[in-house]
C-alpha cells in the first residue's frame, strides 16, 4: 500500500471514464458533488448539512437559555414564540443533527473502506438518501418560515392535530421525508455489511464501529416506518379530520404516544449506538491495545438494539399507561442498562496497561465516558417507577437526555470527526486548539446541564417559559454554561475549518489505527482501494508500528492479516 502523503495532483483519464486521484479532486464542478455516487462525497455533503443544522439548532438553544436567565419573560415576550423556539431546537437537533450525525456522515464515509468494499451496496439509494435529507431540511426550514411549529418535537396529539395553529403539516412532512432518508441509509448499511464483505472479513473480525452501525441500521429499518405512518396520520387528521387520535371522535391520545415512542425510543439508540462504536475505535487506537472483550461489545450493541425496541413505554409511566404495561416496560428498561454497563467496563479494561495518548479524539472519548456515565446512571432514576412519577417531565429529564443525546452522542460525533478528519480531508488540524475545544465543550456542557438535575428534583417542569423564583440560581448557571458550550463549539469548527486552508499534510495513518481505512492514502482514492485490499485484523495494534520518517504508523509487512491473506504472508 502506498504511503504517499501527498495525493496525485494530475488527473489521468481512465478507460472507464473515471479519473485518477483522490476522491476530493478526481472530479470538479458542483454536479460532480450533487449527483455523485461516491459514498465518501455523500458523507462529506451530509457533514455540511449536519454542521449547518447544528449551528441553527444551537442558536435557538442559546436564545432559549438567554430567556431563561430570568424567571419572567424578557427577550421573548410571548409564550407562543418560546414554544416555537424550543420545538424547533428539538426537532432540528434530533431529525437533522443527531440522527444523521454519525451514521450518515462518519458511517457513510468509513463503512465501505473499513469493510474493504469499493462502495455501499446501493450507491444510487445512498445518493437518494442524501437528496431526501436535503428536501426534508428544506421542508423543516420552510415550516419555520411559514408559521413555525409549536407542538414540541414529540407532536403529541390532540395538541398537534386540533389545537396548534402553526404549520404542523409542513414540518411533519419534512420529518417524514427525513425518516425515509434514514431508512435508506440503514438499508444500505445492512445489505453492505451482509453482502459486501471481502474474504477474511467475517462478522466477528469486523471493527466494532461496523457492529454498532449494523445494530443502528436494524433499528432504522424497523422503527422508522412506524414514525412514518404516525406522521402521516397526523397529516390526515389535520387536513381531513380522520380522528384516529382525536378523543372527540373516540380516538385515544395514549395510542399516539405508543406509536410515537415505538420509533422515538429506539431512535435514542440510533443516536447513541454509533457513538459507542466510535468510542470503541478511539479507545483502542489511542491506548494502542487490542479491544477488551470484543465479542461482548459486539453482542451488547445488538442486544441494546433489540432491547431498545422493548422499552418505549417508559415514556408513558405517567401518561395513563396501565400498571401491567408499566411494570413490563420498567423491567425491560433496566435490562438495557446491562449491555451499556458491559461496554463501559470493557472500555476501561481496554485502557488497562495501554499506552494512552490524550490527543484530541481521546479527550472526547474520555469526555464521553464521563458524560455517558452521568447520563446512563440518571437513567436508573427515571427507569424506577415511583421515582419517575416525581421526575417525569421535569428538568431532570431534560438534563438526562441532554447528557445522553448531546453529551454522549454528539461528543462521540465530535470525537469521530476529529479522529477521521485527516482521513476525510487529508489535513491535520491544530492539536492545541483541538484540545481547547474538547475541554471547552466538556466544561460548558456540565455547567449547562448539571444544575438542571437539581432544578428537576426540586420540581421545575420542562418546557416552561417562566418559572418560580426558587429555580433561578440553577437556571442562571445553566445559561452561563450554554454560552461556554456555544463558544467551544465555535472553536472546534473554526479550528477544523482552518485546517482546510492548508495543502494536504496528513499521513495515511496519523494515530496508529489498525482498521482498513488507515491503510489507504489520506484522502482515500476515488474507488477506496487502488488495488485489491489486504484485509488486516482491526485490533491487532502490535502489527502497527511508528515510522519516524513519514511521521505516520504503518502495518509491518505481512503482519496482522486476516483470512485468506494470512496464508500468503
Amino acid at each position, binding site marked *: 500500500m502506498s504511503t504517499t502523503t501527498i495525493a496525485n495532483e494530475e488527473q489521468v483519464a481512465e478507460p472507464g471514464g473515471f479519473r485518477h486521484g483522490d476522491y476530493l479532486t478526481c472530479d470538479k464542478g458542483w454536479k460532480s458533488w450533487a449527483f455523485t455516487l461516491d459514498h465518501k462525497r455523500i458523507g462529506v455533503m451530509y457533514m455540511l448539512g449536519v454542521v449547518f443544522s447544528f449551528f441553527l439548532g444551537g442558536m435557538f438553544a442559546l436564545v432559549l437559555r438567554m430567556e431563561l436567565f430570568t424567571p419572567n419573560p424578557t427577550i421573548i415576550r410571548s409564550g407562543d414564540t418560546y414554544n416555537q423556539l424550543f420545538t424547533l431546537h428539538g426537532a432540528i437537533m434530533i431529525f437533522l443533527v443527531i440522527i444523521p450525525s454519525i451514521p450518515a456522515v462518519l458511517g457513510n464515509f468509513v463503512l465501505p473502506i473499513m469493510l474493504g468494499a469499493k462502495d455501499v451496496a446501493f450507491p444510487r439509494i445512498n445518493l437518494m438518501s442524501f437528496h431526501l435529507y436535503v428536501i426534508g431540511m428544506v421542508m423543516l426550514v420552510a415550516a419555520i418560515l411559514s408559521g413555525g411549529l409549536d407542538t414540541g418535537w414529540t407532536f403529541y396529539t390532540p395538541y398537534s392535530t386540533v389545537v396548534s395553529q402553526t404549520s404542523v403539516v409542513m414540518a411533519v412532512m419534512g420529518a417524514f421525508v427525513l425518516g425515509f432518508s434514514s431508512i435508506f441509509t440503514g438499508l444500505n448499511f445492512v445489505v453492505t455489511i*451482509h453482502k459486501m464483505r471481502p474474504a477474511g472479513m467475517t462478522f466477528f473480525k469486523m471493527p466494532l464501529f461496523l457492529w454498532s452501525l449494523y445494530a443502528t441500521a436494524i433499528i432504522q429499518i*424497523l422503527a422508522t416506518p*412506524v414514525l412514518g405512518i404516525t406522521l402521516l396520520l397526523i397529516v390526515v387528521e389535520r387536513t381531513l379530520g380522520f380522528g384516529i387520535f382525536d378523543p*372527540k*371522535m*373516540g380516538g*385515544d391520545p*395514549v*395510542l399516539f404516544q*405508543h406509536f410515537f415512542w*415505538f420509533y422515538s425510543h429506539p431512535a435514542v439508540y440510533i443516536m447513541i449506538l454509533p457513538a459507542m462504536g466510535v468510542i470503541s475505535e478511539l479507545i483502542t487506537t489511542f491506548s494502542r491495545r487490542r479491544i477488551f472483550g470484543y465479542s461482548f461489545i459486539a453482542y451488547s450493541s445488538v442486544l441494546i438494539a433489540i432491547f431498545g*425496541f*422493548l422499552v418505549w*413505554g417508559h415514556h*408513558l409511566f405517567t401518561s*395513563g*399507561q*396501565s*400498571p*401491567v*404495561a408499566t411494570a*413490563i416496560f420498567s423491567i425491560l428498561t433496566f435490562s438495557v442498562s446491562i449491555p451499556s454497563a458491559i461496554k463501559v467496563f470493557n472500555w476501561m479494561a481496554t485502557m488497562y496497561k495501554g499506552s494512552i495518548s490524550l490527543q484530541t479524539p481521546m479527550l472526547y472519548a474520555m469526555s464521553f465516558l464521563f458524560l455517558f456515565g452521568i447520563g446512563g446512571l440518571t437513567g436508573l432514576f427515571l427507569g424506577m417507577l415511583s421515582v419517575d412519577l416525581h421526575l417525569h417531565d421535569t428538568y431532570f429529564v431534560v438534563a438526562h437526555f441532554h447528557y445522553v443525546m448531546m453529551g454522549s452522542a454528539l461528543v462521540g460525533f465530535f470525537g469521530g470527526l476529529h479522529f477521521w478528519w485527516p482521513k476525510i480531508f487529508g489535513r491535520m488540524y491544530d492539536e492545541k486548539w483541538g484540545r481547547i475545544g474538547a475541554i471547552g465543550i466538556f466544561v460548558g456542557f456540565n455547567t449547562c446541564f448539571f444544575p438542571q438535575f437539581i432544578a428537576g428534583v426540586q420540581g421545575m417542569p420542562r418546557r416552561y417559559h417562566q418559572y418560580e423564583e426558587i429555580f433561578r440560581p440553577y437556571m442562571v448557571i445553566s445559561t452561563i454554561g450554554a454560552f461556554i458550550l456555544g463558544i467551544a463549539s465555535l472553536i472546534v469548527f473554526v479550528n477544523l475549518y482552518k485546517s482546510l486552508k492548508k495543502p494536504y499534510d496528513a499521513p495515511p495513518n496519523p494515530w496508529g489505527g489498525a482498521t482498513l481505512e488507515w491503510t489507504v492514502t489520506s484522502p482515500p482514492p476515488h474507488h477506496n482501494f487502488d488495488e485489491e485490499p489486504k484485509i488486516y485484523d482491526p485490533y491487532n495494534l502490535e502489527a502497527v508500528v511508528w515510522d519516524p520518517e513519514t511521521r505516520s504508523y504503518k502495518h509491518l509487512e505481512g503482519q496482522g492479516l486476516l483470512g485468506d491473506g494470512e496464508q500468503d504472508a
Partner: protein
Amino acid sequence: MSDTANKASPHGAHDEHGDPYAHIHVSSWQTLVAVFVALVLLTSLTVYVATYDIGRFELAVAMGIATIKCALVMGFFMHLKYDRALNRMVFLGSILFFTLFLGITVIDLDSSKPDIESYRRENPVKTAPATEESKPSGEATKPGDPKKSGEPGQHQKQK
C-alpha cells in the same frame, strides 16, 4: 417439490459450466397455478364462514385463513421457500417486531378500558359531532334552535 425448470440449481455456488447466473430459481407454471387455485378456494372459504355467526372465534378463523393465504403467497409467489435463509430471517424478524408493537400496545389500551368507558358513559355525545358544522346548508346561523344551544355543554355534559 423441485420446480427448477431449467438446468439452474436452486442456489449456491457457481456450477461447473461457469454460468454466473446459475443461482436464479425458476418456478414451474403448474405450481403457480396450483397456488392461485388454493388462494381462490381459501378466499371463498373465508367469505362463506363469515356469513355464519361463530362469535368470538370469528376473528381467529378469519386471521387463520388469511395467514395460510399469506404463507402460500410468500412461499411460492415470492420464492421464499427457495430463497436464502437470511431473507427468511429478515422477514420473520419484521413479523416479530410487528407482533411486539401490536401486542404490547393492545395489552396496555385494553387495560385502560374502564377509564375510557366510564368517561364515555358519563360524557355522552348528544349528536354526531360534525353535524353542527359541516352541514352543507347554512342552517347554522338560522335562529331556529335557541333552546338547544342553551343546554349546558353539547360535547361535555355537566355531571
